[in-house]
């Protein structure tokens, strides 16, 4: 009886140790995945999620992959501008960094958000950028309209039609690329061509 009980306790302890080792190994793998995906995913979070809520809401969650998938799907349904590829990347990243076993206080991300990788790779520069207004209207609708209103007439963010900043192109670029006040940085979400197109379109308004 006592021997049997000892055997049970022994195998329980071994089992627990095994689980702990497995959990630690899994933790390492997930850490690698989240570090690799972080530059693009963090850029996406700023561009697609923080339009409606700050990123701290995301960072406090600890969810299994299925629930992250359901959450991203719900946000798409509610109007987040997330493509299928972006959703896939986000779910992989979020479930690797913010999984149920992750500690409450995660070490900070290695990179600075300002250095987040551009979502669209730039072609080699070949002469000055020329904005195309017709393209800009569409890019604005998908990225800027939520805050600056339809037709750029203002909303939670300022009105951009006839806004003096349009005449100071350097300030306009600085603001879009790096953010200002409550506006997030868009440098990782929009290509240089996208920004030039938006600027061109705003000038026609």
């Amino acid at each position: 009886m006592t021997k049997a009980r000892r055997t049970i306790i022994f195998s329980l302890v071994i089992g627990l140790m095994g689980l702990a080792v497995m959990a630690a190994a899994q933790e390492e793998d997930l850490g690698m995945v989240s570090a690799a995906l972080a530059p693009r995913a963090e850029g996406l979070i700023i561009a697609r999620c923080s339009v409606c809520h700050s990123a701290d809401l995301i960072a406090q969650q600890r969810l299994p992959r299925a629930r992250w998938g359901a959450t991203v799907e719900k946000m798409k349904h509610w109007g987040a501008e997330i493509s299928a590829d972006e959703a896939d990347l986000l779910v992989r990243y979020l479930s690797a960094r913010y999984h149920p076993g992750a500690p409450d206080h995660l070490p900070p991300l290695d990179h600075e958000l300002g250095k987040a990788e551009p979502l669209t790779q730039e072609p080699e520069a070949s002469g000055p950028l020329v904005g195309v207004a017709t393209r800009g209207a569409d890019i604005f609708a998908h990225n800027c309209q939520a805050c600056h209103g339809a037709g750029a007439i203002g909303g939670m963010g300022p009105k951009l039609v006839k806004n003096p900043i349009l005449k100071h192109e350097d300030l306009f670029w600085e603001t879009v690329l790096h953010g200002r006040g409550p506006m997030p940085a868009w440098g990782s979400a929009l290509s240089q061509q996208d920004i030039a197109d938006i600027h061109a379109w705003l000038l026609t308004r």
Partner: protein
Amino acid sequence: MNDEGESGIISRRSWLNRLLCGLGASLIVNHRPSQAHAAEEEFASRETGPLIVRVTRPFDAETPVREFTSFLTPNHRFFVRSHFGPPPQEAVSEANWKLRVGGLVERSREFSLKDLRQMETVTITAVVQCSGNGRAFHCPKVPGVQWERGAVGNAQWTGVRLRDVLAQAGVRGDAHHVQFQGADRPVVDSVPLFVRSIPLEKALHTDTILAYEMNGRPLPLLHGAPLRAITPGWMADSCIKWLTNIIVREDEAKGYYMQTAYRVPAKPVEPGAPASGPSTPVEVMPVKSLLAAPQEGETVKLGPVTIQGVAWSGEGKVVKVEVSFDEGKTWESARLVGEDHLYAWRQWQFVWKAKTAGIFTLLCRATDAHGDVQPSTSPWNPSGFLWNGWDRVTVTVTA
């Protein structure tokens, strides 16, 4: 042997769940606190520090529990929660704001703030608590703002009875629910509006009010200016802020925040199970107590230590608060003190004669007039609502 039915499988699975949660906790304990953690602790140790911010935008923040040594929670220390943040100030200014009452009524009515102030005034002291207060303690973790202990407060609410407002419009016989909508709006139009309803019986209750004052001051913008619903004894998801529209209806309000969110399974579910099956709206607050002093991590001297806190229950008064120093094996009764109102919280005290130095975990639990006792942990539910597990504080006693 065929007697290992569903229940056998479920209990084994829940055992594994508990084991994994325990493992997670031990990993956390072993983890060296990051700089962010240290900063947060420093933040929390200030005497009358600011709220603990959970979400920067829209702003969600909870009150440090040390504030709960006072009966009323001051307005600027009161927890803040909304789905979209406050509407623009001008939308709720006295000049622009109107309350519209319509739906299944004899005559639709509009009220200005002045109209409401001319009606009979009622003041009620009541606990307002976020349905998700304590969500962070559910295991396995669930999505949502990870509130810990302080998404709750006790304030004096002054306004008019909802039934008096409804009487002026004349509620029709086929009405069963009263829907609320505020002036707050999502950033993107495709996000559902925050619309909820309460059953007519609760709406017509003599203590259900529309408040324009909080602790004797005009309702602050973050707390719903100029008017919010107060449903005493019920969770705050019914206490709609920035109220502009009341619609009397036959059925419950439609939409995400009534039909999907703010609901709990009608029958207990296995921890970790996805939301499915019949559910009921979050309404009455379960019995709960909090330990406000000493604070978590505090060092106290050998000798008498006054332990104090608050306790409340949605329906029925708190009749007993107990403390335990041995993980709930034995309990000792605390003394109920201070003001005693039906919907307010009750303050309590216990003089602890700390006789040996060391690290002690203090627990508290409350019992209400119905005999409901605060459990060690609350039933798990997919959205982490209604947490009322024993409150827990660890202190160090030094010679």
